[in-house]
Each structure stands twice: as C-alpha cells, then as structure tokens.
C-alpha cells in the first residue's frame, strides 16, 4: 500500500522534474502517467495480468475517488460569489452549452473516424 503510493509519487516527481527541466508543454502528473505506463508495459511482458493485484486495487480506489479530490477546489466558489452575482447566469449558460457542444464534437469525431478506419483495417 505505502510502496504503491511511493511509486505513484516517484513517477509524479520524475514527471515534474522532466516537465520543468525540458520545458515540456505537459503538466508533471501527465508526464508521470506516461512514465508509469511505460514501466507497466515493460512489466506486463513478464507478468501479463495486472488485474486483481494490489497495484490495481489501490489505483482503482484512487481513480474511483477522483470526485472527492475536486471538492476543496470547488469550494473556492465561496470566494467568487460577487462575480457570480453579476454574471452567474451568463457564466453557467456558457459552460452548459459549451460542455454539450464539446461532448457532441468529441463523440461525433470518435465515431466518424472509427467508421472510416473500420472499413479498411
């Protein structure tokens, strides 16, 4: 359990160091994700099944609890009540319509490219 948390932190730290020192456009944790994925890809060559391992359980727990991790940031809304009073309706409508358009564009492009590439495998 602690070893796995340490592994995640080592990957994040290495990602942070790489991202900063090479001035990558990517955030540190994303670089850490790529590093861990490369380590795991090498690992599964020898032991193919990650499912059911402690690593799988701990990370499923973390990723499944992602929502909680956004609560402290979201509570910051109490600092923005003045702005929301002035522009709240416009902001919320903008975000709702933009989120719908973004999801439609994404899912549409996904399915279109899948259809095009599916015909010629």
């Amino acid at each position, binding site marked *: 359990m602690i070893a796995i948390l340490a592994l995640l932190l080592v990957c994040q730290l290495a990602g942070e160091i790489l991202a900063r020192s090479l001035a990558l456009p990517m955030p540190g944790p994303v670089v850490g994700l790529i590093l861990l994925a490369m380590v795991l890809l090498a690992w599964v060559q020898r032991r193919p099944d*990650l499912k059911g391992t402690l690593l799988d359980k701990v990370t499923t727990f973390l990723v499944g*609890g992602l*929502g*909680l991790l956004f609560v402290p*940031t979201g509570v910051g809304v109490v600092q923005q009540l003045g702005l929301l009073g002035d522009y709240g309706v416009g902001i919320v409508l903008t975000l709702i319509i933009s989120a719908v358009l*973004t999801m439609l564009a*994404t899912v549409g492009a*996904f399915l279109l490219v899948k259809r095009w590439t599916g015909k010629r495998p």
Partner: protein
Amino acid sequence: MNDPFALWVYLSSTPLLWLTVTLCVWVGADWLALKSGRNPLVNPVLLSILAVGAVLLATGTPYARYFEGAQFVHFLLGPAIVAIAVPLVTNRRIVMENLLPLLGALLAGSVTAIVSVVLLGRLFGLPPDVLLAMVPKSVTAGVAMGIAEQIGGSPSLTAVLVVLTGVIGAVLVTPIMNALKITDYAARGFSVGLASHGIGTARAFAVDPVAGTFAGIAMGLNAVLTSVLAPVLASWLV
C-alpha cells in the same frame, strides 16, 4: 465550565476540522448518490461543494483557512492522475484498437471546448477577464490554473469554472448519450473525460470501466493539447 466558543476558535483554525468536514460531507454525498442508483443529477461533487460552502459561509470561515485542512485531499489529485496509467495498461488492447478515433476526437473536442466557450461567453456579454479564465475550463484543475496564469486569466476563478464544467458534464453525459443511442462506451467515456476532466472521469468509472479508462486518457491528452492550443487561440479569440 469549558467555553464552547474558545473550543470552536481553536478547532476551526486546525487542519483537522476542515479535513474531517470534507471527508464526512463526501461520505454522505456519495451515499446519497449510491442510494439514487447513481442518478446523474445526484452528483456527489456538487452536493459536497454546496454543503461545505454553506458551512463556511454560515460560520464565516475564510476559504484560505478551510483549504489548510482540505489541501491534504487536494494534494492527491496529482497521484490520482498518475494512477490512470494502470487502467490504461490493463485496457491497452482496446485502446490500441481505438487509437485513430481517439486522436481525431481529441483534436475536435479540444478545439471545440476552447472556441465555443469564448464565443458563447462573448455572446452572453461576459467581460474579457472572465473569458480568459474560461479558456482552459475543460482541463483538470491544477493544469487549468497554470494555463490561466499563462494567458492572463485569474487562476482562482478558473479553478471554480473547471469544477463547474466538470459537474455539468458529469450530470449531462448519460442523458445526452442515451438520447443519441450511443452505445460505444469508449466513445462516451472519451467525450466526458475530454469535456469534464476528472469529475467526468469519476462519473464514467461509475458507469463502465472501459468508459472510465477512455475518460482518463481523454483527460490526460486534453491537458497536454490545451496547454499548447490555449495561448494561441486565446490571443486570437479574446
């Protein structure tokens, strides 16, 4: 006799109290979400923010003091992003099968997220500083705040807009995809992860593991692409 006010003054200044409040409120909100059969409208993130926010306002607690306790939860955002490598590798076969659709969807979605929010915001008469803070709203919190700083928006406003966007996508994705009769869970997950980062990803994992994996990939890739696109598009649009 103990003075309850003195006790409150002491406790409300410790990280212990606000960390405990955050976790307990979350447990309650998640229980409600579970009881509702994971109804998308009963979103645990939204419920928790409303409840904790109400407590802070009622007790006159400044956000900075609350955050001293809540930062221990907030800190885990980074390791949780790294952890997405695990479902990514476990599902590597289906990811490779969908590589081209995934890249096409990433480009279409990332550009739509940035351009649509600026154009709509202008349509609704929002001032330029709010527009700038909105540009990275589909990107996960820490990264979005960095992008906002870079393009001249307020990071603390961006953080709130990011969470709002996350909740909106998590609430709307299931009804929209069901109405469109889209049954490809890779495509569904990817779209909510792109539009609504980690909160959308949490929703996707609650629905289907493949959807969750694709949502996580979309969140990671969109963080990268938006970091590149936002400075260019923002100077052009705002």
